[in-house]
């Protein structure tokens, strides 16, 4: 007689796995932190997503303030509102670009216990000091920091997370 585990792991048994949905979509806010990243986020926003909201914080010269964030049509968004209505925040930035202001967003996530994933796109593998400029402000707050060579990883990761 087959053991419990041997019987349960046959290819035939796999057919009886329940096929219903086993999760509800999480509200994931994807925030572009610089202008190259905003181009990536705009392209992604045109796709089909479950519960993803695409936002930019890439206004040139703008300092972090209450209306620092904007939707992709340019309407100002309240930073705390956005963080408070997220289950997860993903920042997208470009290696070498300034990201100091992202600390404000990161601190808001920390205060509201919202997990922050920071994605840095580094297509040219820039030198460490320049990369640090982007990464250092995020490192203190992000629970996951990814440095990816290609921007296509942003889509791959969001898809994997069912955004």
């Amino acid at each position, binding site marked *: 007689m087959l053991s419990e585990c041997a019987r349960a792991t046959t290819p035939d048994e796999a057919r009886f796995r329940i096929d219903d949905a086993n999760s509800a979509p999480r509200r994931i806010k994807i925030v572009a932190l610089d202008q190259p990243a905003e181009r990536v986020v705009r392209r992604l926003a045109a796709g089909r997503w479950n519960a993803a909201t695409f936002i930019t914080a890439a206004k040139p010269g703008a300092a972090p303030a209450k209306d620092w964030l904007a939707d992709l049509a340019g309407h100002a968004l309240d930073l705390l509102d956005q963080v408070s209505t997220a289950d997860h925040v993903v920042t997208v930035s470009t290696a070498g670009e300034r990201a100091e202001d992202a600390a404000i967003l990161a601190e808001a996530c920390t205060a509201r216990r919202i997990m922050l994933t920071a994605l840095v796109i580094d297509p040219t593998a820039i030198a460490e000091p320049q990369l640090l400029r982007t990464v250092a402000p995020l490192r203190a707050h992000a629970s996951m920091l990814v440095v*990816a060579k290609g921007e296509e990883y942003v889509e791959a990761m969001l898809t994997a997370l069912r955004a």
Partner: protein
Amino acid sequence: MLRREQNDLLTQTGPGTPGGAFFRSYWLPALLAEELPENECPPVRVKLLSERLLAFRDTQGRYGLIDEFCAHRGVSLWFGRNEENGLRCPYHGWKYDVTGQCIDVPSELPESGYCKRIKLKSYPLVERGGILWTYMGDAQKQPALPEYEVALVPPKQRFIAKRLQECNWLQALEGGIDSSHVSWLHRGELNSDPLFKGAKGNQYNLNDARPVFEVVESPGGLYIGARRNAENGHYYWRITPWVMPSFTMIPPRGNHPVHGHFWVPIDDHNCWTWSFDYHPQRALTQAEVQAMRDGKGIYVQFVPGSYRPLANKDNDYLMDRAAQRAGRTYSGVAGIAMQDASLQESMGPIVDRAKENLVSTDNGIIMARHRMLRAIKALTEQGVTPPGIEAAHQRVRSAAVVLPPDQPFTDGAKEALSVREGVAHATV
């Protein structure tokens, strides 16, 4: 989650599949050298990438890896006679050399040259570092032999084993790059296993069950850094390299030997988990080797005469609910290797990744899949050689280091992540 067609690409590695072509770009561990211990020893059945093969060592010590079945009537050459520089089928006496070339068909006149027309598929089989490696791809593209440090250190400094794992190779690999499970599934072993205990780093692991991760692409794959709090605001980093297709190294603990794995598909429902330990500076101690033989660390005890773990699905992995309740083991299964394997096999032969719900800390897994899918696409559509083949990609190390908070591990552990001959691993 992965779409079903993506899951198929990564999990199907048989002949003619894109995933199979990907694996056939690399030298792969095929057998332990101890499995063919002497000239004219018995041949060994080998199944790799869904092909039935036979390994043998001829009269002159040459290794061969050939189609298992005689070209005449399909008899398994496992029954063959290994004699006088070839393997002779016992049915009608057809004989093959290590390249699969038929060198004798007794029923035909030698002058007919008939045997020259018969050749079994064969692959090179080369010993390096106690492992017999094979390359199953296009002969014109055969790369240089592997340069992983474990295969280059003296024999007394390493220990290598393999075990059967009864699930798809990707489930097993993904366990190797999933650092966040260690604080849960293996927490009992960090302070008790003779090959893990005693390291200062273990306390950082146990004191901080919610590590922060950083994933960085490397030329051959990835570095996955898991960061935990240390003293004075510093961070304790454990850095795991993954090199395509399936090499990983566990970050070291104290002065213990460092451990790692290769996962090699047997077919789509089974794989070989290769486990190794080595120390770059010193011979392994008798106690260490004995612990490895006893199934400690990342090793298992075997069903006698086989490479199947003694705790396996047929005996419910010797599940011990009392040990689970008492906290002696977290899952009720003993030993790090079978704690992993039991759960990975429980997913079924090939887990349906369309149903999974990954979270942010799974980015190492997400990135590894992404890079492999990219590599498979580039290989099959443009013939681009995948990462992980060049020596520089393979000469990597894991590391465990304490760094200031503002120093990235790619900077602070830069030297530590490369092989430095005769220099110990960076470890805490």
